[in-house]
């Protein structure tokens, strides 16, 4: 069928328009609502008094539902993500999710009993940065910033910055070193990542 066919042309134009424009822009209140929910769930996990291994499983589940693990893992992999196979990317995403839960879930336990509240939000480039304040009794409040996007089709967070310390930046450095030490072998790096954190 030739492209000049009117119905087909209209269909293609319509398709292009749908692809170019997101169905609905992510609003500030969507982004804040997600972080309220994430912080609520984190508080629930760390204040539950469950065993460490159980908490880590709960954190992994939280990341799977509320974080854009696909985008995070592609980003920390950096340029090698482009030459990786779909199978490698998905194996890495799964390994990285577990590693994040072990490494950061353990550290989140420090925030047990903390008061957490969303104090602001601002638009940065193509996403929202939600600013939250954590207060531990008797200590100076500190700031955690969450980066939220709906580019995956769902409203998910993809980065957190604790008092200036950027999770994606740290993990890009970490995964970069791990890959380099293994001569760029993604499969070996994935196998070792399953033991790390």
């Amino acid at each position: 069928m030739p492209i000049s066919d009117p119905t087909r042309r209209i269909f293609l134009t319509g398709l292009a328009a749908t692809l170019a424009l997101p169905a609905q822009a992510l609003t500030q209140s969507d982004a804040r609502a997600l972080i309220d929910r994430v912080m609520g769930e984190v508080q629930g996990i760390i204040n539950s008094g469950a065993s460490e291994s159980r908490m880590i499983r709960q954190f992994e589940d939280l990341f799977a539902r509320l974080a854009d693990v696909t985008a995070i893992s592609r980003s920390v992999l950096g340029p090698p993500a482009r030459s990786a196979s779909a199978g490698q990317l998905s194996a890495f995403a799964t390994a990285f999710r577990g590693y994040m839960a072990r490494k950061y879930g353990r550290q989140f336990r420090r925030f047990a009993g903390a008061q957490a509240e969303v104090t602001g939000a601002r638009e940065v480039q193509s996403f929202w940065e939600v600013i939250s304040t954590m207060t531990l009794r008797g200590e100076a409040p500190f700031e955690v910033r969450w980066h939220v996007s709906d580019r995956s089709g769902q409203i998910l967070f993809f980065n957190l910055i604790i008092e200036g310390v950027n999770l994606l930046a740290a993990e890009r450095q970490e995964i970069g070193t791990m890959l380099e030490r293994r001569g760029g072998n993604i499969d070996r790096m994935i196998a070792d990542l399953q033991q790390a954190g």
Partner: protein
Amino acid sequence: MTLFARLLCVVLLLALAACAAPMPPAGANDPFEAANRAQFDANLRLMGGGDSAPRPSPLRRRVINLGDTLGLPSTIANDVLQLRPHHAVENALRLAINATIGLGGLFDPASRVGVHGRRSDFGETLHRWGIEEGAYLVLPLVGPSNQRDALGMAVDLAIDPLRFVLPSRDYGWSLALRGAGRVASAVENADLLDANVIATADPYAQARLLYQQTRRYHLGIASEDDVIDPYADF
């Protein structure tokens, strides 16, 4: 050259200087990496083991509080040099409360009433005066720093108000206590250091990143270049 032409030259030079000023580089400015790595390893060996989360210890708390209180006069002097009267007042209030009700700095009642204070040093004063951080440095015992902050430490030792108030022997003790406070607080945070630095593939690189990020955050340097947008990559 006419007066106008000379003025124009001055304005252009100032504009050029302004362009060349702040904005930290994206990568790490680390021309002394080999020497820094050697010093980093030496510092780590000195710290020894102790990688698990320590139990809270009242004695350790006292040492941390004492070191904090003894560092306040120096912080206040820098607040004044930075023309930040509100910081100077808050830190002075903290000093007054903890030195008296806090029994000479052993306890921290100021934090209980929300007077947390804000640490400062001559490195920050230099930053406020427009000096860039320069190359990354790992100092003996002290650890991660940079050229500006290392110079700042030396100046802080020279201009510490306590030096002019206390007899030199006592001033020596106050420095030792501040050092002990730093060690005690490092012990308190050993689990964080372990997870984010020691246990990583390249502890040196992670410590460098961590120092630069926390330092720039404390100084209020935010660069849009540091924003990571994973959706822009693919």
